[in-house]
């Protein structure tokens, strides 16, 4: 559970970081894109305007040259015509026809050479003398204005464009000669068809463009007059007018003196990029423009490209983030999995080493789950019923009722912690094992017990050692008790009889004195014997010789030599089995063992006429059991339990301190064996049986 939480926390952290990173990246990308777009728009607009201005400048130059050519032609021809007129015919209407023909010829020539629509020669009163073509109608006001100015200034004057009767747009150049003669000089008029060269030149565009347009305007009264015809508004030239009050119109703005770049609606109301400038030497303004749509078509294309780029980058960022996230995630998950797997393995190993497993019991359903180690402790596998009755079946019959009651009443019923040692019968091998169960209760929100979680540990080894220790402590206490009591007894005797001795000596009671001394001597001898025996007993605990294999027959033979006197005195027969068997242990101690058993048997023969002692081997559970059987006094079963006790004597009048069988028991136990006695009753003999296990530990009793 813990690594999961950790994993989730790391993930949340990572996701947060990636989101923030992606957001920052997106904002930066979008802002950069916008900045680039803005910059690009400005650049393109500047470029385009530069182009437009260059075109406009070319047109203005062209118009200027064209004007100057007209004026030059007018001056040159005027001078010529006026000379003719002045010399030869001060009154052309009264002059000879030859002069008129020459003037007309000259005008016609001028018209043809200069490519003019018509050429007029005027008299000094401004009357028409000749025209190169058929007689024109009345002069347009624009021409009359120009003639008036020309007569006053004697300089070439270009008339404002006007619409001729034949529908042509005309621009006339007028020159009136100065005072070269007294006679009032006449004037010449070179009339050009604006639609033939000037207007097309103005309207022409150097590159193909769907919206580019250039036109000329001039102010006429309260109106702005469009000199040229318009690309997007039908109508002959010099016929379209807009009010000067439409101050937003670029044409009006230009006529009001605004020059340079203009961005805004044009006469159609459409957004345009335009150049406004005045045409020098005229009252005209030139407007050169392209629709903003066309100008910014490229920008729009760029914008799309930039937008696409921006979102492409953001998408790429997202993809990279996602990829990074997934890589991190899987790395994180792999790391977490590795941690879990490792800790799981450590837990299992630790549990196996400790013979300890854990479980969780669902109190409501009565089922439990267990760790592998716990199944090992119970000796079960996954198929074993994991429920309360399955657990109950594991319990040792002697502990079953007690332990199940403990669980149900004390733990679950009473809300206590489970803490109990009990025995189980391990399923795998049927062995009885001690286990220590611990368990804490878990409750739901309502405080009801739902689960118990805890551990179960195999504590058989500890239990066995504890039991062993308890027994040894008990033995030790008994030993100290016995020794202190039995050693105190003779001292009491000695002290008391010394007192009696003193009194009896004063009375000179020689018989009593002798008796007192006898009691004192006996007590002292008894103490000497007890101390010697105790020393012997303590020696047994320290196995001083390395264990070896000794034939039973050799041991019995050696032991019999030690007690040969007593055996012979009692006339007892000793029979030893011939079965080859050897005992593994400390040779001198094992000899002592047989010596004491033989001694004991002889001592308690009673008045058996045919004393026999038989030594042999039986088998019990495949283990050799040595027996020493006699046909002597036997043992009252009521007293058999005290037989092996220290300084215990069933017969107070027999010799010895009562250490013999205690010593025997000690020797057997030091060799890891067990000794017990059986008798059918008084007079029926006794059989001592014992085991000396091969390879049993022999040093663990050293402290005793």
């Amino acid at each position, binding site marked *: 559970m813990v690594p999961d939480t950790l994993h989730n926390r790391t993930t949340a952290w990572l996701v947060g970081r990636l989101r923030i990173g992606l957001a920052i990246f997106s904002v930066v990308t979008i802002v950069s894109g916008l900045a680039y777009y803005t910059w690009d728009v400005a650049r393109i607009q500047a470029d385009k305007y530069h182009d437009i201005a260059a075109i406009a400048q070319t047109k203005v130059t062209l118009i200027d040259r064209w004007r100057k050519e007209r004026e030059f032609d007018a001056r040159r021809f005027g001078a010529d015509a006026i000379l003719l007129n002045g010399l030869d015919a001060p009154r052309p209407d009264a002059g000879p026809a030859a002069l008129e023909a020459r003037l007309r010829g000259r005008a016609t020539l001028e018209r043809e050479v200069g490519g003019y629509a018509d050429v007029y020669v005027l008299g000094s009163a401004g009357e028409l003398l000749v025209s190169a073509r058929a007689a024109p109608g009345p002069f347009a006001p624009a021409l009359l204005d120009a003639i008036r100015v020309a007569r006053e200034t004697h300089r070439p004057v270009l008339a404002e464009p006007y619409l001729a009767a034949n529908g042509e747009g005309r621009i006339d150049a007028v020159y009136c000669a100065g005072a070269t003669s007294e006679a009032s000089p006449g004037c010449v008029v070179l009339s050009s068809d604006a639609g033939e060269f000037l207007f097309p030149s103005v309207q022409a565009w150097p590159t193909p463009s769907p919206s580019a347009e250039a036109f000329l305007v001039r102010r006429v009264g309260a109106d702005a007059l469009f000199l040229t015809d318009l690309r997007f508004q039908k109508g002959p030239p010099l016929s379209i007018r807009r009010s000067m009050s439409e101050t937003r119109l670029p044409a009006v703005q230009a006529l009001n003196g605004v020059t340079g770049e203009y961005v805004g609606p044009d006469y159609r109301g459409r957004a345009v990029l335009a150049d406004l400038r005045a045409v020098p030497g005229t009252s005209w303004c030139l407007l050169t423009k392209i629709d903003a749509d066309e100008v910014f078509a490229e920008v729009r294309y760029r914008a799309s490209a930039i937008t696409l780029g921006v979102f492409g980058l953001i998408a790429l960022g997202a993809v990279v983030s996602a990829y990074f996230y997934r890589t991190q995630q899987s790395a994180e998950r792999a790391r977490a999995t590795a941690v879990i797997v490792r800790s799981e393995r450590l837990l299992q190993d630790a549990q196996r080493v400790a013979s300890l497993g854990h479980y969780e019991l669902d109190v409501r359903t009565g089922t439990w789950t267990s760790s592998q180690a716990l199944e090992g402790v119970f000796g079960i596998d996954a198929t074993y019923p994991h429920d309360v009755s399955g657990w109950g079946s594991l319990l040792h019959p002697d502990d079953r009722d007690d332990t199940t009651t403990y669980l149900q009443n004390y733990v679950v019923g009473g809300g206590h912690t489970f803490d109990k040692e009990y025995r189980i019968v391990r399923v795998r091998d049927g062995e009885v094992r001690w286990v220590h169960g611990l368990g804490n209760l878990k409750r739901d929100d309502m405080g009801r017990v739902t689960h118990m979680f805890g551990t179960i540990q195999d504590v058989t080894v500890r239990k066995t050692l504890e039991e062993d220790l308890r027994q040894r402590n008990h033995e030790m206490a008994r030993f100290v*008790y016995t020794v202190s009591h039995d050693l105190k*007894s003779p*001292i009491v005797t000695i002290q008391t009889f010394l007192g009696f001795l003193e009194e009896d000596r004063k009375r000179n009671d020689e018989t009593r004195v002798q008796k007192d001394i006898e*009691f004192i001597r*006996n007590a002292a001898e008894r103490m000497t014997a007890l101390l010697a025996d105790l020393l012997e007993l303590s020696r047994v605990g320290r196995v001083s010789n390395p264990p070896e294999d000794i034939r039973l027959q050799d041991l019995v033979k050696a032991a019999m030599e030690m007690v040969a006197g007593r055996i012979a005195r009692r006339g007892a027969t000793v029979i030893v089995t011939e079965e080859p068997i050897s005992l593994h242990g400390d040779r001198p101690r094992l000899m002592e063992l047989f010596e004491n058993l033989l001694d004991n048997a002889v001592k308690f023969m009673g008045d058996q006429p045919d004393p026999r002692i038989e030594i042999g081997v039986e088998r019990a559970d495949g283990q050799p059991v040595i027996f020493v059987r006699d046909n002597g006094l036997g043992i009252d079963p009521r007293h058999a339990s005290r037989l092996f006790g220290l300084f*215990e004597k069933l017969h107070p*009048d027999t010799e010895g301190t009562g250490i013999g069988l205690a010593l025997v028991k000690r020797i057997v136990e030091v060799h890891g064996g067990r000794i017990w006695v059986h008798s059918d009753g008084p007079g029926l003999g006794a059989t001592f049986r014992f085991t000396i296990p091969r390879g049993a530990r022999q040093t663990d009793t050293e402290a005793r």
Partner: protein
Amino acid sequence: MTAINGSPVTILLVEDDPAHAEIVRRNFEESRIANRVFHVEDGQAALDYLRRHDRYVHPAVSPRPDLVLLDLRLPKVDGQEVLRQIKADPDLKGIPVVVLTTSKAEGDLVSAYERGACSYLVKPVDFDKFRRMLEAFGFYWLLWNQFPHDKPGA
């Protein structure tokens, strides 16, 4: 000397050590208190005596004692067990039992009183103390203490 009521007090001394039995006997003689001391050497013999088994079957050989003076460490059946059996026996439980032992062990004391011992005496190592203790014991039990007249089974 006789007791105040005129009849000598009968004591069953259960003591495996002949020297200690001799000490008790001599001290009683010294204090000249009328008594009859019957001595057995092990726990089994004590029980047999009281129940008149085997060689104790005749009341003349084994008169019912007024008091049992019991050592604890005994062959065959130990003193605590003898005490238990006396107090568990409806015929015998009326007999006061005084423990006389070398053991000062707390366990022995508690156990003896729990099993119904009247008194618990520890054999002193000092000759004079031993004498004075037995003297006081004699006066108390043999002179001042009242026993029932009708001795069931006597």
